[in-house]
C-alpha cells in the first residue's frame, strides 16, 4: 500500500494538472492572478513616483505621457497608487483567507471527526455566525475593532471562518466513512496520524477551491470596507479608498474612479476563474 499510494496520487496530480492546463478560462484566471501578484511584489522596484507624493501643479490631470493613468485630487500619480494599492488588496485577500483557514479547518475537523458535543457546539456556533450576512458581520467587527487594514483583515477572516468550518466538517464526515480510514484505525494508527495522513490530504481539494473563491470575496470585502473608510487609512493607497475619494470628483476626474474599479474587477475575476477551473479539474466526476 505504501508503495502504490504515492504512484496513484502522482497519477491523479498529473490528471488534475492536465485538465487544468486545458481549461482556458482557468488559465486566463491564473494569468490575471499571477500578473497582479507580480505587480504587487515588484512595486518597490518599478520606476514609478512615490504613491504619497503630492504635486499641487498637477491636480486632477487626465491621463498623459507624464501620468499614464492621470493624477488624483492632490496631484498624486494614479498608476503608482494603483500598483501600491494592489499590495493592500492581495494582502487582505490572502491574509483574511489564511485566518479563516487557520480557524475554520481545525474546528471543522474536530466537529466532523470527533462528533458528539464538540460537533454540536461548533455546528450551532457556525450556524449562528452564518446567519449574519458576511459583509454586515465584517463591517460590525471592523467598526468595533477600529478602522485599519489589519483590523479589516481580521474582521473579514473571522466572518469567512464559518464557511470553512461547515465545508471541512462535511468533507471530514464523508472521508472518515471511507474504508482506508477504517483500515488505518484497524492497524492501530493514532488519531493525530490518521488526521494528518488520511483525513487532511483528502479534504484538501474542496477546501483549496473554496479558499481561492473566498480570496475573491475577501478582496471585494476589503475594497468595500476601505470604500466605507473602515479599511486601509490615508495616505496609504488601497483600491477601495481610492474609489471612495474618486466618487466626489466624478464630473471633474472620472479616471480616478475608472482604474481602481477595473483593477478590482480583474483580480476578482482572476480568482473566480481560477477557483472555477480548480473545481472542474479536481472534480472526479468530470474525469
Amino acid at each position: 500500500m505504501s508503495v502504490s499510494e504515492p504512484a496513484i496520487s502522482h497519477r491523479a496530480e498529473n490528471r488534475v494538472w492536465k485538465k487544468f492546463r486545458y481549461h482556458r478560462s482557468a488559465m486566463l484566471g491564473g494569468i490575471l492572478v499571477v500578473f497582479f501578484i507580480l505587480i504587487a511584489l515588484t512595486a518597490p522596484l518599478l520606476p514609478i513616483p512615490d504613491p504619497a507624493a503630492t504635486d499641487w501643479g498637477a491636480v486632477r490631470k487626465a491621463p498623459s505621457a507624464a501620468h499614464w493613468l492621470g493624477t488624483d485630487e492632490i496631484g498624486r500619480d494614479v498608476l503608482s497608487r494603483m500598483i501600491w494599492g494592489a499590495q493592500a488588496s492581495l494582502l487582505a485577500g490572502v491574509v483574511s483567507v489564511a485566518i479563516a483557514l487557520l480557524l475554520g479547518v481545525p474546528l471543522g475537523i474536530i466537529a466532523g471527526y470527533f462528533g458528539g458535543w464538540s460537533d454540536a457546539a461548533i455546528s450551532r456556533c457556525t450556524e449562528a455566525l452564518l446567519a449574519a450576512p458576511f459583509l454586515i458581520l465584517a463591517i460590525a467587527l471592523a467598526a468595533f475593532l477600529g478602522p485599519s487594514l489589519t483590523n479589516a483583515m481580521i474582521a473579514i477572516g473571522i466572518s469567512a471562518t464559518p464557511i470553512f468550518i461547515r465545508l471541512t466538517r462535511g468533507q471530514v464526515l464523508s472521508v472518515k466513512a471511507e474504508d482506508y480510514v477504517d483500515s488505518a484505525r484497524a492497524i492501530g494508527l493514532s488519531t493525530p496520524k490518521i488526521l494528518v495522513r488520511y483525513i487532511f490530504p483528502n479534504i484538501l481539494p474542496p477546501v483549496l477551491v473554496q479558499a481561492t473563491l473566498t480570496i475573491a470575496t475577501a478582496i471585494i470585502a476589503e475594497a468595500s470596507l476601505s470604500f466605507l473608510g473602515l479599511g486601509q487609512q490615508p495616505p496609504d493607497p488601497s483600491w477601495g479608498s481610492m474609489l471612495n475619494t474618486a466618487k466626489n470628483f466624478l464630473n471633474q476626474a472620472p479616471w480616478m474612479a475608472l482604474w481602481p474599479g477595473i483593477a478590482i474587477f480583474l483580480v476578482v475575476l482572476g480568482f473566480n476563474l481560477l477557483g472555477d477551473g480548480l473545481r472542474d479539474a479536481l472534480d472526479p466526476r468530470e474525469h
Partner: protein
Amino acid sequence: MLSFILRRLLIAIPTIILISVFVFALQKLLPGDPVLAMAGEERDPDVLEFLREKYRLNDPVPVQYFTWIGNALRGDLGISLRTNQPVTELIASKLPVTIQLATMAIIFALVIGIPVGIISSVKKGTVTDYVANTVALSGLSIPNFWLGIMLILLFSVRWKLLPASGYVPLSEDPVKSITTMLMPAFVLGTALAATLMRHTRSAMLGVLKSDYVRTARAKGLRERSVVLKHAFRNALTPIVTLTALLFGELIAGAVLTEQIFTIPGFGKLVVDAVFNRDYAVVQGIVLVTAVGFIFMNLIADVLYVLLNPRLRGQ
C-alpha cells in the same frame, strides 16, 4: 406541514440565542468604557456613575445580557446614542426603503438571471453559453459600489437621464420613486442575477439529462414545451429556495448601494451608526438581520417542501 414548520422553528431558537450572545459579546469584549463614549466630553465622575446606573452597567455581565435580551424580546433594542431615538423605531422607519430596493433588485435578478440560465443550459457548449457564463462571472466579480459609481457617471453626470441619488417614497410619487430606484436596484441585482443564472443553468443541466425529459422529447413534444413545462418546472425548486436564501446577500449589498446613491435605508443606517460609534444601533441591526436571515431560511425550507411533491407527505 405544521409540525415541520414548528420543528424548524424550534431548531432556530438555539441559533437565535447564540447570535444574541455573539452580538452582546461584541460590545463587551471591546477595550474601553462605553460610558465614556456616551458621555462625550463630559468627564464628571457623578455623571459617569449616573450613566452606569442608568444603563445597568454596574450589574454582572450575565445579568446585563439577560436584561438586554429581555428588552429585545419586548421589542426594545435600546436607544440610539446619536439621535436619542429608540433603535427599534429607527430600524422600522428605514426597513421599508430597503425592502423596496431589495424587491426591485430581486425582480431584476429574476427577469435576467432565470431566462439567461435556461438559454445557457439549452445551448450548452455554444458561443451563447460561453458569453452568458462570462457575463455571469463578470457580474459576480464587479464590485457593486464601483458599478454604481460608473452608472452615476454615465446616466446622471454625462447623459442626465436618471437621478444620481435620493429617495422618493412609493406612496408619494410611484413613478418618481421607481425611476429613482432603477439604478440602485440594477446595481444591487447584478450579482444576484449572475448567481441565479449560474444556479438555473446548473439545475437545468441536471434536469435536461433526466429520463422524463427524454420521454417528453420521444413523445414528439415541441422543444419549447419540453424545456419550459417539463424541465424548468422541475428545476424551479432549488432556484426558489436560493432566491429566499439570497436575502442576506441583498441586505449586505444594500449597505454599499445605499451609501453610493444616498438612499436613507437600512444599509445607510448601519454605516452611519458605525461611524458615530452608535453601538446599540449596530447591535440591533446585526440582530435583526440575523433573525431575518433565519426566518428567510425557514421560508426557503418550507418552499422546498411545498414545491417538491415527493417531500410533501413526509
